[in-house]
């Protein structure tokens, strides 16, 4: 395929080594037929790449398409356009058999610890399932399940219990164990900690960080909370209505956001220091970003133009391309 030789749009992220995951101009539309084609795409021309050992965060509001991107990479959602390459090979429309081979290297941790484990399967059966389809003997699979549970801080005898007997945080640890049991290279974490309480969230975040350092894992860390993302990610991609608004080094994007939407997103995240929060609130109100309930932007223009305080006629008619501003890539005519 010619995808690998295609010119990268976000050229700044170019690395000498081959990216582990390369997403180019990904488009995902829901539904079929003329009516669906008239609707804005759930994911509209998104490109980014993940290097081996790197964590990339995807942030955005609900409906920004961040989970859809994760699903498209995992093959759970059909791509309508663009390509996804893993380790240099195109997996955009990989066959189920190819997916099964990939399933060991490309894994996922989902949001809801209550429904990401089959309540009718024992923990051992859930953990062994990915190994068993790869032909690992039952006894060895069970041993590896016990070892992995010990690694995420749960007793080995948990293999015989059912998900209902564990707390949310413990279930999320089990989900992490399930994802890591067949030594993956890339893990898609879709809102993996957002359903957890603060202390448990910190435990799972630490666990993810430790496992990454220990095994050289790459994560695609999808979350709505930019502070959680910045703890784990080296680079952040900010999405709005299916399009990339800004991408760049995590610290840079959160400390000096360039795109008006990123500015609004960062300013809206409250900090637990009352005096500083009051300042941030004033800053946020001064930004003048219009309410989230504003109507969707006309197709063709910048998707944020209806809410943006800086929007002009140009923004409403022409979609801005991603361009380098400082260390980040920003899709704004006026950044």
């Amino acid at each position, binding site marked *: 395929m010619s995808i690998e030789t295609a010119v990268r749009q976000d050229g700044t992220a170019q690395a000498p080594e081959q990216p582990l995951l390369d997403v180019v101009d990904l488009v995902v539309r829901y539904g079929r037929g003329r009516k669906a084609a008239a609707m804005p795409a759930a994911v509209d021309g998104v490109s980014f790449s993940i290097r081996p050992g790197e964590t990339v965060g995807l942030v955005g509001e*609900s409906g920004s398409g961040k989970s859809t991107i994760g*699903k498209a990479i*995992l093959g*759970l959602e059909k791509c309508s356009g663009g390509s996804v390459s893993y380790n240099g090979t195109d997996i955009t429309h990989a066959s189920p058999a190819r997916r*099964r081979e*990939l*399933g060991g290297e490309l*894994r*996922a941790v989902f949001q*809801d610890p*209550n*429904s*990401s*484990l*089959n309540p*009718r*399967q024992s923990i051992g*059966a859930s953990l062994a*399932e*990915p190994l068993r*389809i*790869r032909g690992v003997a039952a006894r060895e699979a069970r041993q590896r399940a016990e070892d992995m549970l010990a690694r995420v801080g749960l*007793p080995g005898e*948990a293999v*015989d*219990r*059912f998900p*209902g*007997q564990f*707390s949310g945080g*413990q279930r999320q640890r089990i*989900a992490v164990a399930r994802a890591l049991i067949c030594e993956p290279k890339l893990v898609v974490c879709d809102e993996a900690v957002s359903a957890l*309480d*603060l*202390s*448990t*969230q*910190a435990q799972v975040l*630490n666990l993810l*960080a430790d496992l990454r350092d220990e095994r050289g894992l790459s994560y695609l860390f999808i979350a*709505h909370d930019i*502070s959680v993302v*910045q*703890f784990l990610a080296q680079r952040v991609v900010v999405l709005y209505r299916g399009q990339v608004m800004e991408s760049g080094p995590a*610290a840079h994007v959160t*400390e000096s956001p360039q795109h008006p939407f990123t500015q*609004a*997103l960062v*300013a*809206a*995240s*409250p*900090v*637990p*220091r009352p*005096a*500083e929060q009051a300042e941030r*609130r004033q800053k946020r109100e001064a930004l003048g970003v219009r309410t*989230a*309930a504003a109507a969707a932007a006309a197709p063709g223009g910048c998707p944020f133009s209806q809410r943006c305080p800086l929007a002009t006629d140009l923004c409403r008619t022409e979609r801005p391309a991603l361009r380098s501003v400082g260390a980040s890539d920003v899709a704004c005519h006026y950044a």
Partner: protein
Amino acid sequence: MIPSIAPAPVPATANAEDTGTGEATPASTATGRPGPGPKAAVGRIQAHRLFAAPGAVAGVLWLAALVLASLTAPWWLPYKTEDQDFAAILSGPTAAHWLGTDELGRDLLSRIFAAAAGTLGTSLITVIVGVGLGTVLAMVAAAGKRTEGPISRVTEVMMSLPGTVIILAVIGAVGTNIPVVMAILGVLISAGIYRVMLGQATALQSQLYVDAAKVDGVSTLGISLRHVLPGLNNTIVVQSALIFAVGMLIQAGLAFIGFGPPIPQPSWGGMIQGASQHVYDAPWLMVPTGVVLALTVLAANAIGNALGKAPNAAASHLPSAADRRRRAAASAAAPSTAAAAPSAAPDEPATAGRLSVRGLSVGVDGGTPLVTEVSFDVEQGTVLGLVGESGCGKTMTALSLLGLLPSGVSASGGQILWNGRNLAAAAENELAGVRGREIALISQEPMRALDPMFTVGYQLVSAIRRLRSMGKAEARTEALGLLEKVGIVDAARILTTYPHQISGGMAQRVAIALALAGRPRLLVADEPTTALDVTVQAEILSLLRALVKDTGMSVVMVTHDLGVVADICDTVAVMYAGQVVESGRTANILDNPRHPYTLALLAADPHANTAEDMPERLATINGQVPQPKDWPGGCRFVARCQFAGSACAAPVPLVPSGSDDGLVRCVKADELAVEGLAWVATEVPAHRVPDILEMDSTVEKDRP
């Protein structure tokens, strides 16, 4: 949020505490102990439910007896089915014929039991074909988007076919071959079963664990068999029991109109048909067969009902009628303690809003306490934050302010003084007058407050009319005003929309408008922004702040987000395991926390750090919030605290913390403040902390 009222059984190991979410899965609610495998667990749930209902037990016994009697009939029946006793034609029960005889002098008892096996067996064919086919079709349709359309169209055609006509046509073609006829009936019934199963199978297919299995590379068949079919088990069993009864009735009906087994062979329908010809001269003839058929159908239905009963069907957010009666009786019996309260100034204006909670305890009726000795004050026009992790009693405390505790849970002590009135001891009708008019609630899920069947306008207008006794037109104007007040620009259009047509943020605004309909003086907001995007959360918080400023309303804000507390709360009460562990002014508590739990929460919050000083590891708190039944006698945080010592084993009182009117519940609070200790980022037990402090460089920096 709501701790489980009847705690699910917990395994012995310390590391596997059950959650307090109250939504334990069937596997843990019903079985108690893990079964050796999923199948055994499911089997045991159903067995458990089956034997809890006396009707179902009787049904099982009846069916078992019938099958046993029928299969062993040749050995014990007094007569052959064709034996004729011309001396006793159409007789009632006699010593020779216990259930009497028919028009040919044949023994009814013998014929009924001889016919039973055939009737039950052929009904089973209908069950196997109908439920089997329906389930398989549903699983195939749910597994692939492309298969669902054709299968659904075919079943729709099947459902629109006149079943009786088809069966009669089949009988015309193949004769009265009962097994074939019953199998065809099964095929016709499978269309209905498919409809029932499809919804469930589709829901199961959309579960995250199915996605996880797909990522693993599990085949479609594997997913259907391992992840979808076990979830359908319950429905399959229930439907089978009901279809079994239907099969028997239809079979009897066919025999009644003459399409039963060949004539000398006995069948229940044929016997009823024979009896119907002698209904005037020998009415008894109808009774034995009719009763046996009716009992068998009832037995199958009773079993189906018992298996189909949802385990948590009785759970409700409102107190049950019995609770309300009991509470009303209790408050009538005990003289209201409110009169003695110092704040019960009779000349206070009705519009004032002061809430003073004193020593409030909430618990399961006659059992575990969930909230103990909680005290806080909310001055008019201020916002109080109730903050803590799930399972700490925040929501229970908030709901008790409105008398909306779940059934089986009630305020067991203390006072909720609202403008001097003690709501903790108020009767339900008194609370109903307060609810909505003086104290209103907004919940985490705005959609829960809105009925999907009615437009926003209808719901808002009827709430205003009910709470403020206004005319329709006047209420509509008021509704428009309310929507504008909560920041909705095109209020007139929103009035005509249904809840599902608006976004989550918009729905929360509407829910707030609904809460404001009765002009409350106190708003209880239970995690009002947790389900919303941060940008929308910021807008809703600004809205609440403006409402407090403009109307002088007070707010009790339940949240787990310390950032939200910093943004909007004037005072804060940090709750842990059903107690207030620290309270005071927001700035004092967040900038200078005194209790180790507050300290730990702040250290674990990634929002507390900027990108530059983001630590390599976040601080965590070992273990989790203990279940109410496991609360220790002393400090309840002791097992998770990095600073715990021997003094912490004794009960700890809430004492002044030294800053303004702050209170803290920790014996070491002063010591910690003096030494300026911070909660460190490690998961090791507390006694190893000093070593770690010396050798580990990832220790979190002291907070300014």
